[in-house]
């Protein structure tokens, strides 16, 4: 009962934080814009005003669900990895290679194979900072940030020099993927590819893993109290490495789903910070896999809204970044949430006393 009310309070708090952040965004619009009403309407209404925009929101939410899940898993294990961006590139490269250069498979085999390779790539790349953290206690924030650069530069090299499609001209990309590798649309009216279902399935699987399996329990325990976990006989080193590998696998699928769903070929620099957006998603979702779906949707909504706002008014779409920052700070402010809980608690106790 108490857990439930605390959960609801959290939810309420996060929703209010979102509203406050958007309201501050509105105030900024009022300050800088000559057509504030137009800008606000564009930001809030346009993403859901037609099927195309709404489909774009879903498309944008798809990779964010994956990276949000990726970071939720490591954060749950108490590892502050910022490496989803690099893992996403490595996974996307592994998967895209299978998607592009293995012809003649039926889609029902090809697509799972691509996903498996992407998971492998991401997981192996995630294992590096995981092992460094677990066995050498090397600071994972710095190591993952550095490895992000190494990954994006390596993939960029491979795309420019080794696997470049000769027909791609000025910018670097692999040849287009095989037809059997393509994730198609699932509804004629929406421009959305079916990657969103893979994303939702991944969220459900991660939920089941974290809350219904021994491995997930161990992972959460290591994050909450590593000494206690160690004392209880859990191999914390193994759990840490495993958590970063799962995280890398998720980021890797996120990357390749962008390739086979949206772009149709692996392009240089295709992810503009999806891995970092995942950090925000995980924070908003309080590292809960189902919450990640909602947070990713909200985040994508905000991004599409910012784009339509930039098109239809004089406000730059970077306003969305400012709203995101406010949101991150408000949602992570433990003082606010502790205060709220305390007040509710006190009020309840007050009622009990009155009776």
């Amino acid at each position, binding site marked *: 009962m108490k857990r439930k009310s605390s959960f609801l309070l959290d939810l309420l708090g996060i929703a209010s934080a979102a509203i406050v952040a958007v309201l501050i965004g509105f105030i900024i619009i009022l300050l*800088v814009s000559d057509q504030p009403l137009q800008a606000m309407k564009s930001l809030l209404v346009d993403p859901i005003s037609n099927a195309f925009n709404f489909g774009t929101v879903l498309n944008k939410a798809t990779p964010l669900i994956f990276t949000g899940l990726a970071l939720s898993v490591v954060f749950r294990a108490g590892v*502050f990895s*910022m490496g989803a961006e690099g893992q996403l590139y490595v996974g996307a490269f592994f998967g895209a290679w299978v998607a592009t250069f293995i012809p003649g498979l039926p889609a029902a085999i090809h697509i799972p194979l691509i996903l498996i390779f992407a998971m492998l790539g991401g997981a192996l790349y995630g294992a590096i900072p995981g092992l*460094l953290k677990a066995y*050498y*206690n*090397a*600071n994972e*924030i*710095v*190591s993952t*940030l*550095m*490895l992000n*650069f*190494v990954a994006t*530069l*390596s993939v*960029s*090299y491979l795309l*420019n*020099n080794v696997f470049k499609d000769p027909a791609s001209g000025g910018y670097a990309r692999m040849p287009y993927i095989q037809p059997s590798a393509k994730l198609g649309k699932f509804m004629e009216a929406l421009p959305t590819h079916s990657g969103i279902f893979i994303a939702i399935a991944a969220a459900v699987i991660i939920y089941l893993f974290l809350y219904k399996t021994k491995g997930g329990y161990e992972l959460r325990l290591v994050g909450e109290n590593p000494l206690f976990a160690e004392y209880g006989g859990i191999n914390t080193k193994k759990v840490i490495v495993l958590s970063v590998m799962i995280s890398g696998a998720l980021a890797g699928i996120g990357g390749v789903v962008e390739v086979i769903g949206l772009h149709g070929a692996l392009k240089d620099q295709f992810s503009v910070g999806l891995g*970092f957006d995942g*950090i*925000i998603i995980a*924070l908003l979702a309080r590292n809960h896999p189902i919450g990640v779906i909602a947070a990713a949707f909200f985040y994508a909504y905000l991004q599409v809204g910012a784009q339509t706002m930039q098109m239809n008014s004089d406000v*730059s779409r*970077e*306003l*969305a*970044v*400012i709203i*995101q*920052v406010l949101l*991150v*700070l408000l949602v*992570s*402010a*433990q*003082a*606010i949430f*502790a205060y709220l809980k305390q007040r509710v608690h006190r009020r309840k106790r007050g009622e009990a006393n009155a009776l």
Partner: protein
Amino acid sequence: MLSNLWGQIIDLTIIAIILRVTVPILLSALGGLISDLAGVVNIGLEGLMLISAFTSIAVGSVTNSWLVGVLAGVAATVLISLAMGFFSLKMKVDIIIAGFAVNIFGSGFTIFMLNTVFGLTGNYNPEHLNKIPVIRIPFIDDIPLLGNLLSGHNLMVWISLLAVLFSFVLIYRTPYGVHLRSVGEAPDAARSLGIHVERIQYSALAWSGLFAGLAGAYFSMGLTSMFVKDMTAGTGFLGLAVVLFGNRNPIGVLLGSLLFGLANAITTLVETAPGAHIPSQFIKMIPYLVTVLALVIFAIRQKRKNLALS
């Protein structure tokens, strides 16, 4: 290509090139160091530098004074660092998350302002800019080798070297430094001795803001004479790595920064040399790989030390 490189080593121009690129790494690393020592590691250096790079060149070009520009940039970053302190110490946002937020804020806010104030999208390239001056020392300037070594550096080169000395004295030779380190190592013990833990941490963040502010101003008004979006390109993260690499002390930070500066300088030399066949991506990767390697070496050394202690 190699003979060109060799020539620059012989006549010591390479020193000037190294120092040029070392400045922002060194300054941001010093900022990271002081905040790290006080237990509030500022990972928002990257965003802070961007904010200062933009603010300083915008104010500097409007007022036509580099000094006013630098001061404005530093003021902006110190303010934001203090805001970080407010969110972290008062609102209990994890300091890493607060720093992360500052990084995305720095990138987004500068692009937003570029668009809102100047109506530009990618970069701001003012026609008249009074840059941070280059210091030519009369007389020494004419001596062949010594001239290249000591003269003709940007003012910020000297400021950054002085900042190392300043940090050293501040950390190891003042009561404030003792408080700073004790707050970082054992905040509860420090508090029980009557040290104002929060006040020290606020001040440590302000120092990091000051150094990041200077580094940012150097980006737009020393190293170049324009603001380009996301122009810091990971320097703040290198700075953080240097803090660990330099064993968390100012002298180590100086040596680490110089090493990274060297890697950077070689990158530029090899990249711009005619007939070079090494792909640029691999050269760009060097500092990051060195950092990971340094992290591992540092961690192994730490582990040995702990083993020896126990």
